[in-house]
């Protein structure tokens, strides 16, 4: 194999694929990136056996061929090459090593045979639909923070993507929860998604996907079956296994009868929560909200260091209530809301609270209160 391409092109592609490669691997080939040169492009592929990313980079192919080299090593080398450099990748006659040459720099990397590189068999996809990258990004970003990291409940370690009939039309919905909070976002279901199975996209895949959909106005093709999903975003193809489990019936969790409504300026609220939570030494301490007509008082008590309070004007007309929330969860939700005013619907100090943008019902958050 002999390939010449621009350093920036190679770097961009490596940047997409190398993250999939785990830093520590028990199977050596999984540390490598598969390079295959054919036609007018260099294909790069990396996998961790659950997730696979391939990307085609424009290149001058002087001699077709394929090999695998350590992904992080290659990435680090290309990253340190001068901007604008032209890079040549060339395998030895016997295929045991590959040279990376740019200007006066020259590296030799040990190769593993491309025939050993595992293939994530995609099988047949039952559904295919197209999304705008911005829409996909919204579905992911609004819910991603609530994904659980708890191993025991592996079925919560991802985003639940499914279609559902709601308010007279079919919606494509993403839901994530860790048992303390729940996030739900939705959009009109794109053509082709009707009848798709409800699927759970693993956290790592969500993370990679999020980085790939950063560019606006790119069409994303989604293909899925009940075990795999594939996203095609420009020249990048991401294929992933799905979490084999049943996502809990989240609808049951979303409160419908909460009658105490609090409307508050989102920014002011977020800054105030951030300020008072400074006093709590550890993450995840409770902020107490004392809500009375027209105002909210935020209080944090830390037995080791002191206390903090802040009063905020708010729109509230129901009976006074005291309720505690994890400060970080409040901040996470405030950061995801996009409107000017946040609307809290409360029942009592021990029941789930609903948080939304005022005037936007499509995205919603549920927070479990903490004892205070």
């Amino acid at each position, binding site marked *: 194999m002999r390939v010449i391409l621009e350093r920036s092109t190679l770097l961009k592609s490596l940047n997409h694929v190398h993250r999939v490669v785990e830093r520590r691997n028990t199977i050596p080939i999984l540390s490598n990136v598969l390079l295959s040169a054919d036609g007018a492009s260099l294909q790069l592929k990396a996998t961790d056996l659950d997730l696979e990313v391939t990307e085609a980079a424009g290149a001058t192919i002087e001699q077709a061929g394929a090999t695998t080299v350590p992904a992080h090593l290659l990435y680090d080398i290309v990253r340190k090459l001068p901007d604008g450099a032209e890079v040549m990748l060339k395998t030895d006659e016997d295929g045991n090593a590959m040279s990376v040459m740019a200007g006066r720099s020259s590296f030799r990397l040990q190769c593993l045979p491309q025939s050993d590189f595992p293939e994530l068999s995609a099988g047949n996809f039952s559904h295919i639909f197209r999304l705008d990258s911005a829409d996909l990004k919204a579905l992911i970003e609004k819910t991603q923070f609530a994904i659980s990291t708890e191993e025991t409940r592996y079925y919560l370690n991802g985003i639940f993507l499914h279609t559902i009939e709601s308010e007279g039309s079919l919606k494509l919905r993403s839901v994530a929860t*860790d048992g303390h*909070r729940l996030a739900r976002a939705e959009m009109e279901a794109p053509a082709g998604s009707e009848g798709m199975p409800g699927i759970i996209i693993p956290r790592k895949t969500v993370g990679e996907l999020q980085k790939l959909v950063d560019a606006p106005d790119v069409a994303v093709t989604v293909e899925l079956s009940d075990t795999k999903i594939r996203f095609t975003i420009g020249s990048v193809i991401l294929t992933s296994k799905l979490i084999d489990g049943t996502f*809990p019936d989240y609808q049951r*969790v979303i409160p419908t009868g909460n009658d105490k409504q609090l409307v508050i300026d989102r920014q002011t609220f977020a800054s105030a929560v951030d300020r008072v939570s400074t006093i709590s030494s550890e993450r995840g301490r409770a902020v107490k909200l004392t809500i009375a007509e027209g105002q909210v008082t935020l209080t944090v008590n830390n037995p080791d260091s002191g206390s903090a309070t802040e009063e905020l004007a708010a729109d509230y007309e129901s009976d006074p209530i005291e309720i505690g929330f994890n400060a970080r969860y409040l901040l996470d939700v405030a950061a995801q809301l996009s409107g000017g005013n946040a609307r809290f619907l409360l029942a009592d100090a021990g029941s789930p609270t609903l948080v939304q943008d005022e005037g936007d019902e499509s995205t919603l958050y549920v927070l479990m209160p903490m004892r205070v």
Partner: protein
Amino acid sequence: MLAHAELDRLSLAHVDCDAFYASVEKRDNPALRDRPVIIGGGKRGVVSTACYIARIHGVRSAMPMFKALEACPEAVVVKPDMEKYSRVGRQVRSMMEALTPMVEPLSIDEAFLDLAGTEKLHGAPAALVLARFARQVEEEVGITVSVGLSYCKFLAKVASDLDKPRGFSVIGQEEAVSFLQKQPVTLIWGVGKAFAATLGKDGIRTIGQLQTMERNELMRRYGTMGDRLYHLSRGMDERGVKPRSEAKSVSSETTFNTDLSRMEDLVPVLRALSERVSARLKEADIAGRTVVLKLKTAEFRLRTRNRQLGDPTRLADRIFHTGLELLKREVDGTRFRLLGIGVSDLTDAGRADPQDLVDGLSHKRALAEGAIDSLREKFGKQAVETGYTFGRSKVARPQRDGDD
């Protein structure tokens, strides 16, 4: 009582209960008082403690039971009741903690105490306070202790052993070097059989010989251990008394009388142990976030498996079920001699076991456990049990000595 030139200046003590398990049994059963008593047994019988009468006959701890009974056929063998011993051990420890916060427990029945700076408080020098303490333990707990008083940990521990049982020995700075000179190297902490043999090969048998050697020479020969030999042989020990640092984990384990390999045999034990861990967490008002399962195979190979939870817990139910998940993967016909379960990553209980949005069942189980706890508090531990342990109440208790 005692006269020693440095008596007023020494404040570091080592307190050791005399033939602890045996003393507790003799206390509770006066018929045993004048008879040789051996604590130990179970099918893997080894001697865990021998009373002083039995020791006269040559019975030593860790001796196989049949040998011990050969040496002392008239001995009464008592199965260990670890729960009782740890209760008594805690009682003695709390009496120590009434004297000074600087108490560093070494095991259930011994501890270092640093009484420096407590003279004003007690209106007496450390030596007198300790003598009173020893008498108090005898009167209130009904067992005897031996006290060693010195200026450093090493010699305090050595001293407590000099005059056992019911001893009170002092080693001051003045006589430290001359006292050590005649002693065998095995007196030094860290010099066991194997290392003593290594030293013996080099012709070193007494601490006096070490006293004549240079530090560099000792370190060249024995590495970091050489450094320890150099210092301790000269009575130099800078280690301070570290009060028991906050517990890092709470756990409970048991060694089986016969090796177990089947799930149905292991599960009741796991449940019983989980309940013990949970009870201790509840008592201390703490919770743990990582559940740790410990198994020892019949071949003495240790397996530990852990799992982090989303939230800290102190519920027997969660500890048990998490442990069960871990256990399922290990049960493959392997025979185990020990099972343990515990939690680490401890925090205060305030944030433990919050209500969960999607798992309504766990909340119900938590409520059920609360009900079980209050029933047990009122009517005793046997008042109510889960089906996991019902009819197998013995599994809750350690089956062998050395468990806690």
